[in-house]
């Protein structure tokens, strides 16, 4: 079971071996990244098969808590830890030359730190992995090496570093109140944290980790970076990194900060995020920024879902998050050569029928048309919000419905343009590259598979959510580790 640490260690090692291997022999360097990711996926699958009971805690290097750092493995952590190498492999930068080596190295670094975020059971360790992911993403954000890329990356770095400082203050407050940063230990000390200072600590952590989760007040970087960086990087940041940041917040909410005020904070910030994101996407004139703003709206939906208490909330959040993890990277890939003005897309569907058909499929699922998986995700979300019953949650449900209408409006407007007759004398943009189209087709197949196997998928999400929503197995696995020696 301790082989699970390889999910972090392998990509981290490969990130630094890759430039050397590329110097020795170019094909060797080209092979290192994908081979590492495939090995990582295999390690993850083996760990899932070997997982006994609801959750397992692993002491790194044999050092037991309270001094050692632990990895916490349950199905929720494994789903996201496995999603990391799969998504990075799908969005792998196959570029050649110096530039390619740099991008591949940074992508591996991002994969290692994201897997660490999913698995770590220690608050400071999470902070370190978060910083590692942040540094890798600053490098990736400048991958086009344009002036706009550098300026956008600088503004991203400033906001993200600001968030890190705020998160560090939150970590310091938690340590001041409890004297530990182990999440399982913190779960047993919840009484120490259920006071205004504890709530302040949660809010600091929320704002700090919320930067990567594209949460409302700290998401100004999103449209700039996604428009300036290459579409692959946008897909990786919007699809993957944001979900891992959300996972960290959710762990903290479920295990450590069981306070109604904390849930309300998440609900309010998520709701504002949905409103601002969807309306800004409606106003956007170019595809890249429309997708960026829509991503903010979708992440707002995820945060709203996780603010619902109990298993229903985790199940809804997991469904919305996984759906977005499949759909948004695919849309960014389709925008590879359609990234410019939306108006200029007139007739693009005639030059690329497959691309246009996929765009319509993903748009339909994002809006939530049955029987596509997006419908079930939104169904769970609305059911959960309505089930809470208080006026604030009902207002949230209303906002989701309004946002869906807005979303449908701008996505279908774009889809209609794809099939419109091109104006005389203008040439619609070229079809996307075969690699981007192929990857998007694969993701489309995943989406359709989600329609076919919706029943087992729903049962699996329910099972994962039931374990994750309950802090008891989390604490029990850590206790078993300490007492078992």
């Amino acid at each position, binding site marked *: 079971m301790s082989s699970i640490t390889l999910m972090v260690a392998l990509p981290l090692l490969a990130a630094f071996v890759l430039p050397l291997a590329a110097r020795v022999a170019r094909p060797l360097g080209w092979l290192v990244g994908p081979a590492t990711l495939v090995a990582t996926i295999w390690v993850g699958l083996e760990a899932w098969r070997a997982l006994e009971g609801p959750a397992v805690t692993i002491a790194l290097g044999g050092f037991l808590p309270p001094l050692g750092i632990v990895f916490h493995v349950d199905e929720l952590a494994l789903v996201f830890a496995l999603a990391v190498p799969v998504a990075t492999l799908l969005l792998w930068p196959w570029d050649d030359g110096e530039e390619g080596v740099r991008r591949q190295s940074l992508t591996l670094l991002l994969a290692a730190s994201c897997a660490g975020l999913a698995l770590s059971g220690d608050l400071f360790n999470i902070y370190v992995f978060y910083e590692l992911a942040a*540094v890798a993403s600053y490098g990736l954000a400048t991958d086009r090496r*344009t002036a706009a890329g*550098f*300026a956008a990356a*600088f503004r991203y770095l400033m906001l993200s570093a600001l968030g890190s*400082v705020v998160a*560090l203050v939150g970590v310091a407050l938690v340590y001041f109140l409890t*004297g530990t940063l182990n999440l399982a230990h913190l779960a047993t000390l919840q009484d120490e944290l259920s006071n205004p200072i504890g709530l302040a600590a949660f809010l600091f952590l929320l704002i700090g980790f919320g930067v990567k989760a594209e949460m409302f007040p700290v998401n100004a970087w999103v449209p700039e970076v996604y428009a*300036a960086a290459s579409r692959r990087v946008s897909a990786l940041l919007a699809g993957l990194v944001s979900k891992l940041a959300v996972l960290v917040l959710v762990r903290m909410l479920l295990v450590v900060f069981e306070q109604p005020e904390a849930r309300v904070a998440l609900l309010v910030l998520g709701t504002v995020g949905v409103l601002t994101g969807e309306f800004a996407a409606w106003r956007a004139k170019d595809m890249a920024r429309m997708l960026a703003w829509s991503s903010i709206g979708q992440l707002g939906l995820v945060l709203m879902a996780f603010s619902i208490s109990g298993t229903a909330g985790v199940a809804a959040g997991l469904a919305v998050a996984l759906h977005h993890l499949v759909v948004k990277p695919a849309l960014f890939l389709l925008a590879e050569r359609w990234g410019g003005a939306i108006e200029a897309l007139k007739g693009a569907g005639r030059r690329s029928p497959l691309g246009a058909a996929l765009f319509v499929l993903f748009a339909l699922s994002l809006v939530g048309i049955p029987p596509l998986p997006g419908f079930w995700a939104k169904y769970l979300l609305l059911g959960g919000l309505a089930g809470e019953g208080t006026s604030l949650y009902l207002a949230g449900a209303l906002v989701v419905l309004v946002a869906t209408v807005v979303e449908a409006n701008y996505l279908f407007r774009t889809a209609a343009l794809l099939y419109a007759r091109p104006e005389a004398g203008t040439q619609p943009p070229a079809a996307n590259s075969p690699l981007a189209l192929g990857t998007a087709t694969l993701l489309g197949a995943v989406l359709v598979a989600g329609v076919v196997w919706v029943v087992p998928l729903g049962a699996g999400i329910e099972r994962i959510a039931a374990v994750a929503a309950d802090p008891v197995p989390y604490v029990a696995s850590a206790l078993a580790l300490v007492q078992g020696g």
Partner: protein
Amino acid sequence: MSDPIGQVLFAGAIGLVVIGIGGIVLSRHLFRMVLALVIAEAGANLLLVLAGFRWDAFAPILTQGVAAPGPMVDPVPQAMVLTAIVIGVGVQALALSLVIKVWECYGTLDLAEVRERLEADLAGQAGVPLPGSTERPAGERPLPPATAPAGEVRQ
């Protein structure tokens, strides 16, 4: 933390964080934003050290054969702060390298100008018209400017 020095240190740490964040939000110069970030990080690190500090305790160093003379300071936050300082320096170096790149590309470090150029670049890249500025009112000034001073040609 009842002793006055501790209170002053806590207030100082929080003050440094507030000054730093205020500096990042309010500065109009990219280099000053980086400096403000340094201040904010120093404040957060100080807060973390204070979280585990005791005035009546000894440095947490154990020597073989020598018993600890009394209670010791919690070493965990100090180890964490060392990590945080290293991360902070790395991020600051990256921030400075990006500042240099922005200066090379745009020739200015004024935040408003950089943002304007960035917006123009992104709009040009996408082929869409530049959105109206949020900092200046749309349209012309309602009243004509006062008469130009003598000797200057009005355009």
